């Protein structure tokens, strides 16, 4: 009995300690997650849910909205401007990630393996465009492409190529391609830094062994570096593809979708439908936004499925 009696007061104390710990854990979780969680729900999820609702309306933001069910979606599938814009998106989705990732890997490898004294400086130089505002990048490249005073034509003139003050952004044939350099230039530095850090985690012994076996730089890059940083490359590609698909700031500033719609992407079309000079159709713009969301999810799933998940371990 005494033994039992002695053990009785011990149980509530243990329970109380456990309960206190749980309360503390709960408070900690709430404090740690609560603010950002609230922010996410309020500023991301809630507007997105509202947008889904707006997509069922005919609404100009001023007069009372009219519920039109799925009319906006029906119109969207018949709207040739949507498909034209998606075509431009496709061009950029294919070219920009490839032309950003490949040079980034090469540059990162070079800076990492060669161990130049100036490597940190190069890293900063490559990263510089990422600290510039998009508007600065867009305006700078607009000046580069200017027909009469542009840097590009001036360089061509230096080499004796006179293109008669050609406006690179003024022709339907060249405008979309002229958007690639600012898009790529603005991204390479960022991925160089990411890949450099990923490459730093590869044990040097692997390279040493390869060098003893007589492997060239290209072989080391293909057989050691890329397989070992493959997950990082994959996620970078995903970010780039999704970013390029959603983004339209460069086009808005440099061409506003012109000439004659030849650089219009889906995000810009959506923006102009809602906030354009002659269109204020929030309902239709929201339907395009919802469509964009579905396309992005499909793109993500496709990239996940199609990209190689193999990666070597060390």
């Amino acid at each position, binding site marked *: 009995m005494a033994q039992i009696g002695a053990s009785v007061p011990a149980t509530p104390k243990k329970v109380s300690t456990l309960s206190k710990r749980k309360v503390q854990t709960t408070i900690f979780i709430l404090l740690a997650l609560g603010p950002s969680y609230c922010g996410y729900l309020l500023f991301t999820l809630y507007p997105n849910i509202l947008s889904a609702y707006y997509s069922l309306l005919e609404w100009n*933001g001023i007069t009372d909205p009219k519920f039109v069910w799925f009319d906006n979606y029906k119109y969207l599938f018949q709207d040739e401007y949507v498909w034209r814009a998606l075509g431009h998106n496709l061009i950029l989705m294919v070219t920009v990630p490839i032309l950003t990732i490949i040079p980034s890997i090469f540059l990162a490898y070079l800076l990492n393996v060669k161990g130049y004294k100036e490597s940190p400086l190069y890293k900063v130089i490559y990263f510089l465009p990422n600290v510039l505002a998009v508007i600065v990048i867009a305006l700078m490249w607009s000046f580069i492409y*200017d027909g*009469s005073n542009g840097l590009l034509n001036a360089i061509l003139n230096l080499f004796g190529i006179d293109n008669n003050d050609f406006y690179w*952004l003024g022709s339907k044939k060249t405008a979309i391609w002229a958007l690639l350099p600012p898009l790529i230039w603005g991204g390479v530095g960022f991925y160089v830094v990411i890949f450099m850090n990923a490459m730093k985690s590869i044990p040097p012994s692997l390279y040493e062994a390869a060098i003893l076996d007589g492997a060239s730089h290209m072989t080391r890059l293909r057989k050691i570096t890329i397989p070992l940083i493959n997950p990082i490359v994959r996620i970078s590609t995903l970010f780039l593809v999704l970013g390029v698909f959603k983004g339209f700031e460069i086009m808005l500033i440099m061409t506003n979708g*012109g000439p*004659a719609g030849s650089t219009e992407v889906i995000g810009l079309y959506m923006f102009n*439908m809602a906030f354009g000079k*002659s*269109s204020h159709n929030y309902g239709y713009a929201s339907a395009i936004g919802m469509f964009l969301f579905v396309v992005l999810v499909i793109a993500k799933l496709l990239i996940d499925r199609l990209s190689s998940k193999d990666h070597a371990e060390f």
Partner: protein
Amino acid sequence: MNHSPKKLMAGMLAIVLMFTLLVGCSGGNNNTPAENKGNTGEKGNGGNSGNGGNAAEGEVYPENGLSKTEKITIKWGYWENGYGRAWMDHAVEKFTEKYPNVTFDITSSPVIRDLISTKMAAKNDDDMFDIISPSFNGDEGTIAQKAGLFEDMSDLWERDVPDAPGLKLKDAVLDNTMEYAQKIDGKFYQIPMGAYALGLFYDKAFFKEKGWNENPKNYDEFLALMETIKNDGIAPITYPGVYATYINFAFLIKQFELADKAGNIEQYTKDFRQGINMYSAPEVKEYWTRMYEMGKKGYFVEGAAALNHTQSQMQLLQHKAALASTGDWVENEMKDAIPEGFEWGFMAIPFVDVTQNKVWVENGIGAGSLMIWKNKPENVKKWAKEFALFLMTNDIQAVNGENGISPIRKDFAENEANLAKLQAAPKAVLEYVKNNNGQFATGVRDVAFASPDAAKATKMIEELIIEVTAGKKDPLPVLEEADKLMKKVLESEK
């Protein structure tokens, strides 16, 4: 008590969703005027009034009966455009000097219209500016006026202008001002305070140096001028293709000139204002066809599609193009870049065959006009109207003129000495109209369409401009296609 992370998350989600629902539903439609919340309507002694301006006798301004002691703050959403803000600062300074109980809380931005649209969609009257200007125009402005979101200011026409007792505003302004100013369902939601003109601006000194015809009297002479300029290795006309509708500044009004010539101007104007036959009227087809012909001959600058409006206007200043399609604010807007010796000149394209016909010039009556948000306290609205009227005094008109806004007070604009004080670009417009049997008219419509079909038609037309001015696309098939869409829109609006 089991606090599993899953349950915790679910709980948090429920709480936050309830909170967001509350936030989302709390804005609501305020159909009653917003109450004074500290910024407006306080008596000098600190008490709240919001009483519509009633005050004891002797404490009111005799000219308008408004209280001298009631503190009023007017929130102004100001669009800082090509005319700058100097005229606005001057007007505010003079008004508050005269009425010290009134102050202004000004938010000034080149993109103020984006902010206003968002505030409109939020439908929060407290948060909305009391007055917005200049001219929150375009389709969105028309829709908002039609929806009754702004105060009817028609009564101001019957008021005396402050610096000329006995002279009613309607009699003080230039002829046709009331006719040109935008009306929605017969009501004026903005009272004009100035005018702007659109067309082709050039450097007189450069024209003289080249020996080009500064005053083509008919269409053939104009085409001959274009050819001469082109042969001299200069681009005849520049415009900003990034915002391609700038080309309309030179062409849109020409449909009225053609209708006038055909003796059909009255009906044509009515149809135009209601958006009827927007793309199918013969006059519209004709001006597009002429633009196309000019495009084929290479009379528009190459690469226009890549130019924003600053780049386009720089081409004019640098003599890379002879004429720029723009507005008379160009001088004020480019004042820091105008080279020495540049002399502003203006011309419209004479679509007429014989010199006796009128040459039509587009002007906008209403540059800088104020619009007053309807759901605001009565006293604030009354003071806002007083301010709108104050802008019509000659002192204010004179300073506005110095900043590029053409005065519209008859006794000011018709006085040669006053005209001499204007900026050179607006002065060049007036000179052109005087010497060329010019006819001012406005391209403002009284309707706006928000359906996707209407947006699509507009987009088709805007994209067409680049191709037509490059001489690469016949506009007629596209006009027909756009017309079909607009017919559908008009049908659905019936």
